[in-house]
């Protein structure tokens, strides 16, 4: 029983990271229909940036994190402004290739600057700090990740739901020409969503970093976050988060009770099954084109 609960707890912990990445992917997809493959690396470079601040400058963690969040937001907006916006008559696949390109550039940059060796980020909460409640181990860092994920989900959900902006984002995604002709500053919206998304993703990166940092650390969370976002419906913030926790928990239970070697791929198998039944994910209405 304890094992079972522990697995659930671990699943939630893992799911939180996925949820953050998933949220970040959803935010961008909501406005531009682009699955952003650079999401992980945007978080990566922010994490290394934070580490650089902490190790070379003598500033407090809080200040460093604050600066890093600002950095993440600016980075996201900058990438949109300098690269994605310049794409001439972009199609979705072209945009995917562009984000893959950005991903490579950022990855190369981080590896070039910081090398491949594993590092950890100095952080007030140690990676292995935690408490044991009734035989169940709960890591403090995981709790923080969970809180961040829920916090972002709720804040963003309310923000998009109750501001005109949320609707404007969806409008932009649906038809950017039409969005422009009702006066939506699509460019600004894009830039803003890239900024917000980068910030949310960076949170995941920063919370992974105290445990271990190396240039490829964001690959798995990014893919799983993407998978969760798809399972949730790709445009639904709560959907992405719920799906992320489902994935985290399923992975842990599957690893614990069935087969650990197929743990990583079970997530994808489940997603395919879900998509067979609901082709637009769990929490999105499926639109069938009318002629």
């Amino acid at each position, binding site marked *: 029983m304890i094992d079972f609960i522990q697995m659930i707890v671990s699943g939630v912990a893992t799911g939180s990271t996925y949820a953050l990445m998933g949220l970040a992917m959803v935010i961008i*997809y909501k406005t531009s*229909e682009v*699955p952003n*493959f650079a999401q992980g690396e945007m978080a990566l470079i922010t994490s290394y940036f934070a580490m650089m601040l902490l190790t070379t400058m003598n500033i407090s963690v809080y200040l460093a994190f604050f600066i890093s969040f600002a950095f993440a937001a600016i980075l996201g907006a900058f990438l949109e402004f300098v*690269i994605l916006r*310049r*794409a*001439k*008559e*972009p*199609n*979705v*696949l*072209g*945009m*995917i*290739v*562009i984000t*893959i*390109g*950005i*991903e*490579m*550039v*950022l*990855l*190369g*940059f981080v*590896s*070039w*600057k*910081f*090398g*491949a060796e594993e590092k950890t980020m100095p952080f007030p909460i140690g990676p292995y700090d935690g408490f044991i409640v009734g035989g169940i181990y709960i890591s403090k860092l995981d709790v923080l990740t969970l809180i961040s994920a829920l916090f972002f989900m709720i804040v963003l959900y309310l923000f998009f739901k109750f501001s005109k902006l949320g609707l404007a984002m969806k409008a932009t995604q649906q038809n950017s020409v039409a969005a422009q002709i009702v006066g939506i500053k699509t460019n600004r919206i894009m830039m803003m969503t890239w900024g917000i998304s980068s910030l949310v993703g960076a949170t995941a990166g920063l919370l992974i970093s105290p445990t271990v940092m190396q240039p490829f650390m964001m690959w798995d969370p990014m*893919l799983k976050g*993407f*998978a969760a*976002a*798809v*399972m949730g419906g*790709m445009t639904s913030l709560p959907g992405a988060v719920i799906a992320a926790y489902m994935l985290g928990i399923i992975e842990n239970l599957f690893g614990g009770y069935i087969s650990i*070697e*197929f743990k*990583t*791929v079970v*997530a*994808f*198998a489940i*997603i*395919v099954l879900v*998509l*067979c039944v609901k*082709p*637009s*994910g769990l929490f999105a209405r499926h639109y069938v*084109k009318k*002629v």
Partner: protein
Amino acid sequence: MDMKRDYYEDVELFSSPVVVFWFIVLIGSLYLFPMFVDNYYVYVANYIAINIIVAAGLNLLVGFTGQISLGHAGFFAIGAYGTVILMIKAGFPFLLALPCAALVAAGFGFLLGLPALRLEGPYLAIATLGFGLTITQIIGRVELFGGRDGLHAPDLTIGPWVLDTDKEFYFLVITLTIFLLLFMRNLIKTRVGRAFIAIRDADIAAETMGVNIVFYKTLAFAISAFYAGIAGGMYAFVLKFIEPEIFTLLMSILFLAMVVVGGLGSMLGSVAGAVLLCWLDLKLRNILDIPYLGEWLKDLSENWFSITGVSNIQYIVFGSIMIAIMLFEPLGLYGIWIRMKKYWRTWPF
């Protein structure tokens, strides 16, 4: 004057004697190529040709039928493993094992095509991505497939010939590549190809015109997987050793990038995309050997970055090239080529 002038021309393999001439020159030089270059370049040519086959197949799926696949490394792996295992375990000769393995890949393509019928965009991307990862995972766990220790490719003999050098293998690879490309080109010019494009552009209209969407969508997956399978089978003999971790997600992404960078829906584009990206992938590791630039980069690394990570500049260059091509020409290399043709035609005015 005659509006119907190209009634027949479009159907012909070559639209004019000039094209025939250049085609023969091209084929000739392809076959003579190994006589004039180092063996290393022959190896590279083999490697690139194999990627061209995958790219052409993937283009049928992505460019022509409008689906996306991030799992082609999976089909590639099936082809590679299938061929080697059929040869080692079942004693098939290479020329039989290769198509059989590719058919197995095509079968998997068909299966993957079924859920793909209702999926699009990121949903399909994730489904195919999952497929690719699962395949390598399964191969890595099953002892029959050599597990993670990998498999060594047996000696390659076709009838009386023993193909154990890159040059000998080259003739096989290049022949197959030429034929597969021609098949593909023929196919997309006919009814079947038109049906694929129709599905991409307006699937509902295609359906009401009598195109069986289920059939053609799964067929596209199957053909595409078949090509990847053939390529994979030959790849096993280029490397002489295969191991599941070779067939990574990165490989699938690279395949997709070849197609998109080359130009969606253009055969020539796929060839160009595969050549460019493979060549860059192989060549960029020598970026520091470039005179001046290399030195400057070294200086830069010492002062601002790290010299131990200097090789990573290749990622930056690679990524930048991909971005640049897509930014300026959404049709990729093929689009650039069209632009150049237009420009030269009107030159110097």
